[in-house]
């Protein structure tokens, strides 16, 4: 294979390479001229991954406006949808961070409830001043996330298994700490009204916007900034995309993962605060569906379960899509089961699209 050129002497470019000077120089450029429409769509979606969820959301709103009319497309109803998706949105932001690193967190719901119980119970039952009870809840949430992260990085366990385990553990802690009791709305209002602060609603015309929803949007802006405008954010994407390459490029992927899981725990604790605001009370049975709903929002929002691709904006839009379809189908008068059916179809379509878009480089 190597001895085609015999005899001593420095070799210039090999003979077969000389013809390269006459070769078509355009080959190295990669803007293909002829693209089919489908290819162009694929390229567009590849460059603008949040375009799909946006299109689905707008389509959904138009569809239900046409089907249901003013009852759906009214400021009050639309703001209701926003309230309904606030919890999923907040937890979904945490879930997005984790899924961007090619992980998954099944314990987000349990962390959220544990944090809400810690806040409410310590303030109302244990008589801890709310100035301490509130940060205590945030700390507990962050610690839960840290435990997840430590198990994923130092024990090298798959995130699915780790969080499946901690889902049970945190869930058990919820029952232990709360003694399976709900801290009722009037008690919280009397002892620690600040915990219900996120439920405060502002009225604009017919729309009712809760502070919880505003908090969700603020949180999304902050996390968007971190992901897209700081070195840490780039490291999160790189770690999820190709951990080996990230390590070789000098990124401490373990530290990045640990930080991501801890931040996610913190955000879930914020979710716990929003949860108290939404239902007024702190119940160990609240937020049961938050785990899977958050994954649904992330996936429908166009974030890839394989890591490295996706966005916070997508997740918020994904959460809104779920809310719009649930609300719209309910107003249209269809049974609950068809809402679930529709969400299921959306998930499958979203993942199929993701696979198709990812195949672009092939």
């Amino acid at each position: 294979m190597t001895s085609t050129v015999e005899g001593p002497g420095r070799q210039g470019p090999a003979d077969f390479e000389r013809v390269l000077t006459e070769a078509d120089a355009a080959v190295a450029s990669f803007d293909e001229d002829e693209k089919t429409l489908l290819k162009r769509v694929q390229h567009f979606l590849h460059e603008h991954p949040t375009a799909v969820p946006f299109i689905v959301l707008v389509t959904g709103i138009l569809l239900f406006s046409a089907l249901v009319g003013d009852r759906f497309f009214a400021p009050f109803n639309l703001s209701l949808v926003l309230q309904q998706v606030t919890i999923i949105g907040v937890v979904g932001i945490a879930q997005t961070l984790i899924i961007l690193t090619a992980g998954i967190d099944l314990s987000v719901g349990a962390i959220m409830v544990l944090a809400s119980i810690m806040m409410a119970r310590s303030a109302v039952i244990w008589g801890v001043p709310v100035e301490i009870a509130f940060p205590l809840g945030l700390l507990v949430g962050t610690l839960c996330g840290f435990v997840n992260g430590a198990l994923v990085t130092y024990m090298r366990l798959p995130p699915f298994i780790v969080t499946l385990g901690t889902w049970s553990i945190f869930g058990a802690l919820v029952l232990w700490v709360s003694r399976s009791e709900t801290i009722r709305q009037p008690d919280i209002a009397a002892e620690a009204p600040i915990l219900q602060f996120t439920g405060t609603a502002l009225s604009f015309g017919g729309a009712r916007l809760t502070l919880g929803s505003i908090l969700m949007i603020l949180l999304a802006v902050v996390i968007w900034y971190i992901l897209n405008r700081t070195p840490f954010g780039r490291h999160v994407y790189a770690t999820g995309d190709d951990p080996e390459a990230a390590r070789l490029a000098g990124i401490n992927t373990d530290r990045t993962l640990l930080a991501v899981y801890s931040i996610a725990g913190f955000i879930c604790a914020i979710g716990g605060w929003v949860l108290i605001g939404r239902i007024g009370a702190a119940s160990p049975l609240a937020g049961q569906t938050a785990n899977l709903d958050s994954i649904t929002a992330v996936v429908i929002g166009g974030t890839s379960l394989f890591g490295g691709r996706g966005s916070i904006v997508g997740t918020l839009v994904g959460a809104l899509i779920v809310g719009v379809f649930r609300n719209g189908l309910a107003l249209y008068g269809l049974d609950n089961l068809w809402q679930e059916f529709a969400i299921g179809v959306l998930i499958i379509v979203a993942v199929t699209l993701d696979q198709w878009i990812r195949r672009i480089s092939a």
Partner: protein
Amino acid sequence: MSGEAVNVTMQTTVQATVLPASGQSPAEPILYARGLVKRYGRVTALDHADFDLLPGEILGVIGDNGAGKSTLIKALCGAVTPDHGEIFLDGRPVHFRSPMDARDAGIETVYQNLALSPALSIADNMFLGRERRKPGFTGKYFRRLDRSTMQKEARRHLSSLGLLTIQNINQTVETLSGGQRQGVAVARAAAFGSKLVIMDEPTAALGVKESRRVLDMMLDVKRRGLPIVLISHNMPHVFEVCDRIHIHRLGRRIAIIDPAAYSMSDAVAIMTGAMKPPEQMAA
């Protein structure tokens, strides 16, 4: 053990400076290693291996599979810590515990898998792990990336290596061809390597034309005064761009040859043990 140690010291004194193969004035090697030993259980991957890289040269490293050349390279770039032996950079002993250490010392490596993140942009990849932050308040307290500077710098580094065909510095690396990706990796190494660049099989996955561009790029980097260590199985490529060729066999350097004085078949013969290595280099 003591006999071994004596042996190592002797080699050190004998080979502290190495004549360039072409016989010019002796030059102090920028990176050299003496008596490197690395064992994996019963397997000896490096058996008192020596290594010299002279300033401004492209050094080829060839050897059969299992000869220990990748262990040698890993030791030089910090991925493997040798059991014995010493590595000197600019005449000072260095002890790399991780590739980061080597990188901080000015040794950049272009890995065979390139270590690029496909979903990130070219500019992001160029600065991955050493991002620039905005000067002043936002950079310090909000850790804000200085994206415009990074994009400008990335474009400058790419165009200085003739990679002008890349129009959009913000396009993701996965949309690039194999050669262009290699180009981005080389540009990154050339931009940040202050002492030398190690390139592991840079043309292995490339077509004829793309290989040509990478070789030209290497000569470009050399012209700028940055020495390169090229690990390759491709003899025509090695013989074309290298100033000297380090031949590795059975865990050690058995010869350094001048590509102008030997043929490719000689090199292959020495590498595989079919021919005795030239006398002066038998270490």
